[in-house]
């Protein structure tokens, strides 16, 4: 560094040093070239996803209304650019005096999977690779051991008389293990009981996915693909706005609908009315009535997650002539 050093170092051996310097720089050049070439795939990277603005975007809970409006406007622009449609994107806050609950009539579900596809259509989830929030299990009668269930049943007709069907989606637990484990608070429970994700905050560590006992969370392993013509423009920040590669997502009971008083998409499409949704704080609501009057159970109660998603069945009458149409856990409610 200093001239003195230089002098001492090179004294009398100018040639040799120059040669070794040459070699050193050649080696360095080779290394640099290899390094640059090794990182060359990065040129395919979507640079728009790495802007200063996005880097500095605050956590959902720390954003002021004006911050939020700026972010929403930016997302609207992105959606418009990519899908050629101006989305009706907004941030919908939880309503006071509302706590959502879901009830599903196990004896009624026929396993037609319409809910799955309605959900995909409503929530702009990736078509390739496929992401589906709802998984319908075909369970043999007489068991609630999920391991007995089949996920990819493909019968010409459903329901199969020897099976019953159990759709599973996010249970919006009151004691959510996924929220507990998130290292960056990218997922949390809202006042109305919904567990939501800030897709712009998630770092994609997938710890929540490992923690969820209901396998309700999905990860965007690749850039999600949604056909332009299939995009649902009714969007909310915490729910169905388009996600990016590398973040988690999951069922949120259709925030963009339910926080404005409407029913979730999976419920409205159910051909047999097996799905029930409402405000559990309202004693007159359908779900409250069901919890009061029906045989209700929750999945994996022993894990202590306190789900807001309940399965129920009738006490007095079976769905069809079959004497064992209901799962046996009803405790003898049927013949």
């Amino acid at each position, binding site marked *: 560094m200093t001239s003195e050093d230089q002098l001492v170092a090179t004294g009398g051996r100018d040639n040799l040093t120059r040669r070794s310097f040459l070699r050193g720089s050649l080696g360095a050049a080779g290394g640099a070239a290899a390094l640059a070439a090794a990182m060359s795939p990065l040129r395919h990277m979507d640079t728009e996803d790495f802007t200063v603005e996005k880097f500095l975007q605050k956590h959902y809970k720390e954003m002021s209304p004006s911050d939020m409006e700026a972010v929403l406007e930016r997302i609207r622009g992105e959606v418009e650019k990519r899908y050629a449609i101006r989305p009706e994107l907004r941030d919908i806050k939880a309503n006071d005096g509302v706590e959502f609950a879901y009830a599903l009539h196990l004896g009624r579900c026929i396993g037609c999977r319409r809910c799955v596809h309605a959900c995909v259509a409503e929530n702009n989830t990736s078509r390739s690779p496929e992401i589906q929030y709802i998984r319908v299990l075909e369970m043999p009668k007489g068991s609630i051991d999920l391991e007995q269930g089949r996920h990819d049943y493909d019968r010409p007709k459903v329901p199969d008389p020897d099976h019953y069907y159990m759709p599973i989606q996010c249970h919006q637990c009151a004691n959510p293990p996924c929220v507990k484990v998130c290292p960056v608070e990218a997922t949390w429970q809202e006042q109305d009981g919904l567990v939501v994700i800030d897709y712009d905050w998630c770092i994609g560590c997938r710890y929540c996915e490992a923690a969820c006992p209901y396998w309700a969370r999905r990860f965007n392993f690749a850039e999600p693909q949604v056909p332009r013509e299939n995009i649902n423009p009714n969007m909310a920040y915490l729910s169905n706005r388009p996600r990016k590669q590398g973040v988690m997502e999951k069922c949120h009971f259709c925030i963009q609908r339910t926080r404005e*008083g409407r029913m979730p998409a999976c419920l409205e499409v159910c051909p047999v009315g097996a799905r029930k949704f409402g405000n559990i704080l309202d004693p007159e609501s359908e779900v409250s009535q069901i919890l009061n009057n029906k045989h209700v159970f929750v999945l994996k109660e022993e894990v202590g997650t306190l789900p807001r998603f309940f399965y129920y069945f009738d006490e007095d009458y079976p769905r069809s002539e079959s004497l064992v149409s209901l799962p046996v856990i009803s405790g003898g409610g049927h013949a």
Partner: protein
Amino acid sequence: MSPAHSNPDASTRGQGSTKSGWGAYVVIMVVFFGMACWFTFGPDMLDIPTSQPVSVDPALLSTAPRRVILTDPPTINIDGYDRTCMDCHKMFPLREDPSQPLLQHRDIVLHHGINKECRSCHDSKDRDLLVLRDGKNVRYNEVETLCAACHGSVYLDWKQGAHGRTNGYWDSSRGEVRRLRCTECHDPHNPRVPAMDSVAPLPGPNTLRMGKSDSDHRIDEAEHDDAPIRDPLRRAIRKHAVDKRSRTDADEQYDGHTQSETGVRQGTEKEHGA
């Protein structure tokens, strides 16, 4: 600390003086530049599973009720005029013997428990009205009252919201809570919802690298069908299912048998309801 103007210390000089050959450097250079070329022009060894985006027919995702509910009174458009039942039935008397074949309404298949006759539900005097067992009339727009006469518990469930579907809004202050009525799902003449019997399921999960994993599971399960079951409860259920299947296969007329069974049960329910 500029690396360009290196100040080789003791060790470097030691190295430099002993190794005179360029060999090592050439090897290093060749390797590095070779790698650079390979990265740039070499094969792409990625194994990324791809799938075709699945499109679902939007018609399959319709949220419209299964059936179009009748108006009150029911009308039918004939030659551009809306006609009620009584427009015709003023002239046509009631068929006295229910065993005689129908001349009109032959498209109606009556499969509703012990209700073997039109007048079980339709008022034989005023066809624009329905009738309860005790002779009270019920309008078409309150058909659930008629259903409730036999299906008391279902009716209670429906009123509470446990039975049937509710479309629209859960919050009545913001929009219509549209609870579907009995006949929007059930055909009153054949009330079993067809969907419960036969609907093709929409495509199953084909998520990332799902592959064939679960179809193996299926084979496994199929084998299980004959395998002895350890669990006594499951064994009993399997036996029942097998019995039921063989009965259904053997007897095509089984349906009628079932109807009477249901009829008996509904009879009991009726007592509850009344």
